């Protein structure tokens, strides 16, 4: 046990690396107004980090701030502040958490002050609420807003005319706005450089995610997965720091594969894995460790998840292509998970269950997010029908602790896993 613990501390250098990267980023954000570094607020799905970076600007991702606030126990008060200001109890708690944080001084998750945006880049990808979110933020800031409409893949593909629509908007609206805000000219060579780094990062991430095909799985692709996608979803895709982090992470994971070890969980290494699960939907952030523990205590490991694809579906082959800078950004935006129609999402779940040899799948349906949640009950039935594997369905929320009922969720998970065990025994 002691040896395992020591081994984990040694192998988890990537976590320390990530922590430092994020802290440095927020410190840099705090200094940005003094240093004259422009700041662009944007969203994770459809984020154009490489383009933003190529203009020397820094990205701020409000969802990341909201989830971090949830993990650090701050979201409850922020949500209350927003609801007191007239925001409905029915709507997305990420939005209310962000608005509440803003009303409370805009101190970011690491305790540093977040700068006001120089540009609100509304990448309208896979979530209706994004539109209202930035209309709401626009009321608070005196800065331009650029709207980038990413057509939904209603027919299960990004049609050529939709791709062209996205590239036209980037060329004609977004790039001029970035030039205006940053005072820099569009530098396509620099953009290509960042896109090349992005592709390299994506290769490493996919290797990490696909390592879960091993037995035991060296990673937890949901609870651990959200840490693994942290840098690529936030500010570091297309950067040298990002590449360095993912190289390190990959080497750690490959070492675990070679040693036949499982992932580190809140209770230590999970080498004895009795259940391999696929999970659909975002996690609850306010009781994240408690939620994870409900799985790890039962020796259940998540081998694939859809939530880790909201910032890009790299494991289905997409890579940023430096040879087609605008087109590749359009492809990226169009392919983010929540921009896929329900049949495509079901296909993805079925593929994961098959390719990762999962024993079961679970849907965590969050009250806040209709983009994910509407239709999940039908997804459950369709996946059950196509795989012959029964699924589990639990409900919680993103960052509103009022909607995390630990006893109910634990009961459901335990009952579900018992049922899976009984099925396996019967077989």
């Amino acid at each position, binding site marked *: 046990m002691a040896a395992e613990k020591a081994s984990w501390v040694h192998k988890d250098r990537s976590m320390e690396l990530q922590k430092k990267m994020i802290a440095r980023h927020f410190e840099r954000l705090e200094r940005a107004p003094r240093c004259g570094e422009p700041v662009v607020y944007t969203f994770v799905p459809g984020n154009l980090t490489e383009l933003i970076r190529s203009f020397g600007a820094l990205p701020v991702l409000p969802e990341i701030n909201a989830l971090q606030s949830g993990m650090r126990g701050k979201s409850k008060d922020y949500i209350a502040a927003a609801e007191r*200001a*007239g*925001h*409905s109890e*029915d*709507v*997305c708690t990420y*939005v209310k958490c962000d608005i509440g944080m803003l009303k409370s001084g805009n101190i970011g998750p690491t305790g540093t002050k977040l700068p006001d945006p120089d540009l609100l880049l*509304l990448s*309208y990808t896979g*979530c*209706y*609420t994004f*539109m*209202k*979110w930035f*209309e*709401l933020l*626009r*009321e608070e800031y005196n800065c331009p*807003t650029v*709207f980038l*409409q990413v*057509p*939904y893949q*209603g*027919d299960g593909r990004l049609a050529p*005319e*939709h791709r062209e*629509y996205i590239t*036209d*908007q980037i060329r*004609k*609206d977004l790039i001029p706005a970035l030039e205006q805000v940053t005072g820099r000219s569009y530098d396509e060579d620099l953009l290509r450089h960042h896109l090349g780094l992005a592709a390299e990062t994506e290769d490493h991430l996919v290797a990490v995610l696909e390592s879960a095909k091993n037995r035991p799985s060296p990673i937890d692709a949901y609870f651990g997965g959200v840490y693994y996608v942290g840098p690529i979803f936030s500010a570091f895709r297309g950067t040298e720091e990002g590449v360095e982090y993912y190289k390190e992470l990959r080497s750690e994971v490959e070492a675990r594969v070679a040693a036949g070890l499982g992932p580190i969980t809140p209770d230590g290494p999970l080498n004895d894995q009795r259940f391999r699960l696929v999970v659909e939907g975002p996690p609850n952030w306010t009781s994240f460790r408690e939620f994870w523990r409900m799985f790890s205590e039962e020796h259940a490991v998540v081998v694939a998840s859809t939530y880790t694809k909201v910032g890009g579906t790299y494991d289905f082959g997409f890579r940023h292509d430096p040879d087609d800078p605008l087109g590749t950004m359009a492809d990226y935006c169009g392919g983010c998970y929540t921009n896929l*129609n*329900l*049949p*495509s*999402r*079901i296909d993805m779940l079925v593929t994961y269950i098959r390719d990762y040899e999962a024993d079961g799948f679970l849907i965590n*349906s969050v*009250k806040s997010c*209709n*983009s994910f*949640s*509407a*239709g*999940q*009950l*039908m997804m459950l039935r*369709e996946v059950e029908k196509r795989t012959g594997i029964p699924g589990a369905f639990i*409900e919680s929320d993103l960052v509103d602790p009022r909607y995390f009922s630990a006893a109910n969720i634990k009961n459901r998970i335990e009952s579900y896993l018992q049922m899976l065990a009984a099925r396996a025994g019967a077989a």
Partner: protein
Amino acid sequence: MSARSDVVDWALECYHDLDFGVVHGWLEEESGRTAAGYLPVYAPREIIHACGMLPVGIYGGGDQLEIIRGDAFYQSYICHLPRSVVELAQSGRLDFLSAMLFPSTCDVIRNLSGMWQLLFPEQYVRYLDLPHQRNTELGGAFWERELRTLLKDLGEVSGRTATEEDLKRSIGVYREVRHLILELYRVRREEPWLVPTEELYLLMRAAEVVPPETFLEQGRAYLEAVHAEPGRRRDNSRVVIVGAFCEQPPLGLIKTIERAGCYIVDDDFLVGNRLLEQDVPTDGDPVRALADTFIRHASKTSILYEPDPAGKRHLMAERVAAAGADGVIFAAPSFCDPALLDRPMLRAGAEAEGIPCIAFKYSENSGQFQQFREQAGTFSDAIKLWGGT
């Protein structure tokens, strides 16, 4: 029976008929006829009509339909409309539709398009991604291509490829429909005692399911009759209803608001029928004309991006002034993202201008109206006693 009550009774029958008898009647009149359904808020009915299809607005089952199968598709925190739409479909009441369109109103309707693809693979299903870029070069070109795709596809579904002339004729028909709707709204705004919203609303609902020619005939008869049979003027306050553009309130709620002492002088019920604020030109390319008119003249609504940073702040004051209203009632369906996320911005703008506001939530199957009566009645009294500032 008066001419007015004849029309209202006819509209009420259409409203109550969850079996869409009027649509079946039209389909059976001639072999080969087809119908296309669409969900709220906006669908280009001209395109559907030009392909020889009957456009049919699908607004769920309101308070008349017991939800049995629909609840199995949705969690408790999702609005009521999709579950009653699914209930209608699962009970076979929508089997007459050859196509179903899902406009980009919100993520719930968006995801329902995918569910429909799985539930009804034999039906043509299309997600209509409305343009948020409000310039003709980007948004206009995008929407024009979407409309051309829809025109082609529906032509294949109906077996009747629309010619340019067909589409121009349909644009002309829906121009008349919109003119009549706007005239009814004008009369109600200027003399709300002549056109109770309960009756106007029923006419609007009928217009969603009957052939446009039938609506024109009935609507014109109603308009004539209201002048011949004027209602009694009451000492009511004048209010604008905001937020009820998708899931519709039960008829009882509309009656309750008016009976509590509020003349509704503007609203966003079924707003898709008048979303285009200008006529679509019939000279030139009709598809481009439809697209351009949407880009340039779509009314401000929660389902579309507002490019003007001050747009949300000013919208309520503009609507209140245009309607000569005294206050705003924000009435949104529970769990309605577009209406509820917009509300803080709209309400702050209204209150900054000293416009009295109240807010409540409803569901299409709300059955108890006492709380709404008390709220609306108190609101009306407060306006009369203290005015807006």
